[in-house]
């Protein structure tokens, strides 16, 4: 009898804890950690999650399950994580758009403050590219052709209100020219249109340049990127524009401080792991680790910047 009462109390306490969801006493991680990728398998975010998986698994000391929750430009998966129990067992691997762009574009069941940014993994500047057989050998060629025949050139994007769209709007404004906008639903389709000479240019992820053997004219980074050393920056072409597509790990807001610290430490270890860096080099992705507070302030600044840009482009909701 003496033993039963404390045991019962313990059981009761455990029950209360599980019911109320406060897991301060419970060790983290206590079960497999699910990382939601808000896109289909095989996409860029999926690829980065899976290459981070082995190192993160070891650093965290728990199994990691990758779950693809695709749909509506990543907002369905993002919403699922935003509404999940904030105990660190459900995380999201998201690129720039779902947390910092989509909330400006439409009403969503989440906002920027629904997430606690954990760490950034990759950051790839976008590149202005044209078909290799096209007569445009430099940004100047392209701009003067567009000036000579206004409206005859076209640019492809991966849809309205995406990074390639914003970058193109910025480019056209900066160069004071106009082109027809042809939206596609994914990068592969745009590349097919570039190769088939259906559209003239595309400002998209740098990793596409080599795969599709297209001609890069400018990279939208503030300084030359080692992996693309021979591509001039937009700044050197007279356009002070910086656009990149980054991705990182997010937890739902309200996660206990201790768990958050465990997570950021594990992620810092995982992104620095040689397995991760080698795999990223293989897929030609530019690693740019930002951990914890550093990533948090970066995300907030991106959120504000993208809001301004979308507002300027008349795309804000």
């Amino acid at each position, binding site marked *: 009898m003496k033993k039963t009462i404390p045991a019962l109390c313990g059981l009761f306490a455990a029950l209360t804890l599980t019911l109320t969801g406060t897991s301060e006493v419970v060790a983290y991680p206590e*079960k497999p950690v*699910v990382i939601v990728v808000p896109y289909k398998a095989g996409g860029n975010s999926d690829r980065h999650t899976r290459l981070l998986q082995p190192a993160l698994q070891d650093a965290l000391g728990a199994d990691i399950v990758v779950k693809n929750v695709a749909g509506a430009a990543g907002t369905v998966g993002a919403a699922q994580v935003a509404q999940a129990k904030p105990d660190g067992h459900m995380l999201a691997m998201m690129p720039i758009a779902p947390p910092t762009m989509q909330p400006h574009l439409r009403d969503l069941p989440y906002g920027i403050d629904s997430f606690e940014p954990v760490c950034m993994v990759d950051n790839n500047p976008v590149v202005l590219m044209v078909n290799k057989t096209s007569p445009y050998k430099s940004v100047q060629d392209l701009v003067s052709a567009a000036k000579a025949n206004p409206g005859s050139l076209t640019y492809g994007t991966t849809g*309205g209100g995406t990074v390639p769209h914003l970058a193109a709007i910025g480019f056209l404004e900066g160069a004071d020219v106009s082109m027809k906008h042809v939206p596609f639903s994914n990068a592969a389709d745009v590349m097919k249109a570039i190769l088939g000479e259906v559209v003239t240019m595309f400002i998209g992820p740098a990793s596409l340049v080599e795969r599709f053997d297209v001609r890069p004219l400018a990279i939208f980074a503030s300084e030359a990127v080692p992996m693309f050393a021979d591509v001039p920056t937009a700044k050197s072409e007279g356009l002070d524009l910086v656009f990149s597509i980054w991705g990182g790990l997010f937890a739902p807001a309200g996660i206990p401080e201790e768990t958050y610290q465990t997570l950021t430490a594990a992620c810092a270890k995982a992104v620095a792991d040689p397995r991760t860096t080698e795999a990223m080099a293989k897929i030609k992705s530019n690693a740019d680790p930002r951990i914890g507070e550093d990533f948090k302030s970066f995300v907030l600044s991106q959120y504000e910047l993208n809001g301004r840009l979308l507002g300027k482009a*008349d*795309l804000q909701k």
Partner: protein
Amino acid sequence: MVRIGRDVLYGAVMLGFGAFLLWEASDPKYRSMGVGTPFDPVFYPRILLYIWMAVASAVTLRGLVRREAPPKETHDWVKLAVITGVIGAYTFSISFLGFFFSSVLLCGTVCLFLRVKQPVLLVIFSVLFPLATWFTFVHLLALPLPVSPWFSRL
């Protein structure tokens, strides 16, 4: 009593839905969308809905002209209603009870309702099959399934 052909009923339902969707497509909110492209998002759906209305009218008219006798079959509307209800309940219970428990309930109910006479078979099947499926998915294939509020993985 005048029997209305079933095609007329289907055509009318289609016409009704089509009209409703056309009304939705005429909502002024869509006109302000599609900035930066020459079309608003309901440009193409509207074309589809016009064709939809034409096809629905054709189905209705043909149903009125050609009255075919319904084929003679034995139907079991009661059973149908019950099984539809069971599947519907299953649809919602997965979110609340998790995959495993709701599947046990579903298999049990379906087998009871369709008169599986051996109780041993019924119980074994209703527990073992969901368990095996759950194990295959969660452990062998590493595809997470909805869980119940009581256990962390089941």
